[in-house]
């Protein structure tokens, strides 16, 4: 599908990780910077090559300052399914758009990337030489060129069936790389303070991007744990709040989650995590609090709520209980002096979370959270619903053969009026999710079945 020449077309080279999460990330970021997601491409499923129309180079650069899903972006000058198509496409690219980067005072170099195939040096040189027809007037500088141009050849995704010729060839001017290096620099392996369920760094940045977090926002995590999700938001300049029902985790006390370490040291708490990355100034406060019974006054002051609620597997789902429940043998947290019940149904938790978000988010603010599902029973109707919140995206990450979790992003589109008005509507919508209240049993049911199967086959 041909796009009018007046629109600026860009080629995004995507990382082949978290495939479903990529499109919502790019869409959210484009919307954050005043662009809109428009493209001529039919599908973005598995391909690492995305062609987009972006209104300006400034928006493209801003996008790359945030994305962890995209490796690089190029101003697209031509593309085709064969070298001939590529050259003809390049000849159609307006010369006046090329000239600013090719004039005699400038320096440049041409790189070639091939995907799913290795070329010899000779083959690479041949392809670069074939572009001699382009009006390059500048000097080649391989060390520190002002402009970098790239040929990208796509040989498909199947390493066992590499075609003779590429499916697609692209040529463009390199603009910027994305933020994938954050994944390594913020790696949980190097973090001072971790818990059993600390979020993988890449996903925590994706969550902040789905949440359209921006500088000077206030971001809140009601199930903050060790604060991993807050770190990503703070990195993007947001000020952060967290609460957790677990006194020890919030204070950074108790048993360490790291192997070979017994107790948490003095430098292990959420504030220290932010300090480790030079982000302490974004730390507002953390509180010991029950997310189902929030202590925030009436009002809208959170720009985003980004959280990973407990699924009841490695961390228990809890809320504060009553004196009557103590006799049923529940955990009593000595420090907090309040009985903490072990049974908090998952569906109730999402009911509370969505209501809380609808009430305290600013209009246009986003809620981003993980929803665990038992795949054989999952249907889209199970995704929690709220009249004030619009569903933006729903991305699956497989956990095991029969369970996965879904990253749900919602945006507040309507002012919250009266809590009671919505309760009966909400409870109807949550009935489909009720089956997941025993998520813990379902999660482990696959394991017990497999063990039984293995025992059976070993006896045969």
């Amino acid at each position, binding site marked *: 599908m041909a796009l009018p020449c007046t629109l600026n077309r860009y080629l995004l080279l995507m990382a082949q990780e978290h495939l479903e999460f990529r499109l919502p990330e790019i869409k959210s970021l484009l919307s954050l910077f005043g662009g809109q997601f428009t493209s001529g491409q039919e599908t973005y499923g598995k391909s690492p090559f995305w062609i987009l129309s972006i209104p300006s180079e400034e928006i493209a650069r801003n996008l790359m300052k945030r994305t962890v899903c995209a490796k690089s972006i190029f101003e697209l000058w031509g593309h085709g399914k064969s070298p001939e198509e590529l050259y003809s496409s390049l000849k159609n690219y307006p010369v006046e758009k090329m000239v600013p980067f090719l004039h005699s005072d400038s320096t440049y170099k041409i790189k070639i990337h091939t995907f799913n195939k290795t070329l010899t040096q000779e083959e690479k040189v041949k392809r670069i030489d074939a572009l001699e027809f382009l009006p390059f007037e500048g000097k080649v500088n391989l060390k520190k060129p002002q402009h970098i141009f790239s040929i990208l050849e796509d040989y498909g995704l199947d390493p066992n069936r590499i075609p003779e010729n590429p499916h697609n060839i692209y040529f463009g001017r390199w603009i910027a790389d994305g933020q994938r290096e954050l994944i390594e620099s913020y790696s949980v392996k190097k973090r001072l303070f971790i818990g059993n369920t600390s979020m993988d760094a890449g996903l925590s940045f994706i969550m902040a991007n789905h949440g359209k977090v921006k*500088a*000077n926002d206030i971001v809140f995590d009601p199930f903050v744990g060790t604060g991993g999700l807050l770190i990503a938001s703070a990195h993007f300049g947001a*000020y952060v*709040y967290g*609460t957790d*029902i677990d*006194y020890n985790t*919030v*204070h950074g006390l108790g048993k360490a989650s790291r192997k070979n370490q017994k107790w948490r040291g003095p430098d292990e708490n959420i504030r220290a995590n932010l300090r480790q990355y030079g982000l302490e*100034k974004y730390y*507002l*406060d*953390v*509180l*010991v*609090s*029950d997310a189902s*019974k*929030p*202590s*925030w*006054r*009436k*009002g809208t*002051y959170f720009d985003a709520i980004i959280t990973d609620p407990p699924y009841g597997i490695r961390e228990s789902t809890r809320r*504060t*209980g*009553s*004196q009557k*429940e103590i006799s049923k043998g529940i955990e009593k947290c000595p420090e*907090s*002096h*309040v*009985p*903490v*019940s072990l049974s908090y149904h998952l569906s109730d938790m999402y009911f509370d979370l969505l209501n809380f978000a609808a009430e305290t988010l600013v209009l246009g603010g986003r809620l981003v959270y993980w929803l665990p599902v038992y795949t054989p029973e999952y249907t889209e109707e199970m995704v929690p619903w709220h009249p004030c919140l619009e569903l933006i995206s729903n991305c699956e990450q497989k956990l095991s053969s029969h369970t996965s979790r879904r990253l749900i992003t919602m945006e507040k589109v309507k002012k919250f009026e009266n809590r009671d008005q919505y309760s009966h509507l909400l409870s109807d919508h949550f009935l489909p999710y009720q089956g997941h209240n025993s998520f813990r049993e379902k999660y482990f049911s696959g394991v017990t079945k497999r063990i039984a199967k293995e025992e059976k086959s070993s006896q045969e």
Partner: protein
Amino acid sequence: MKLLTHNLLSSHVRGVGPRGFPLRLQATEVRINPVEFNPEFVARMIPKVEWAALLEAADTLHLVEVPKEPIQGYEHDEKFLRKMHHVLLEVDVLEGTLQCPESGRLFPISRGIPNMLLSDEETES
């Protein structure tokens, strides 16, 4: 606990509703924590502040130079914003209590962290 936070917290003891705000602050240990001044962020917070509650808390802590109300054109008034920055973000209550003005229930603050947990009987249904 920062005074910005105190300004956003309310008691959720059963039956108190909006009368649970503001919580009465009592501090036994306070620290002044320098935080990098960011005028844009402070300006964003001004419309969210409940001023009477802020003044009451500042008074309890014997803070001086606390603006009595937002002034016209505060977004560009660096002097005003710096004062607000100090009050909202640099005063840290390390030890103390927050008290529900209606029920009298105390919420302790230790190591700078408030504990807002209540049992089932004490909270709204």
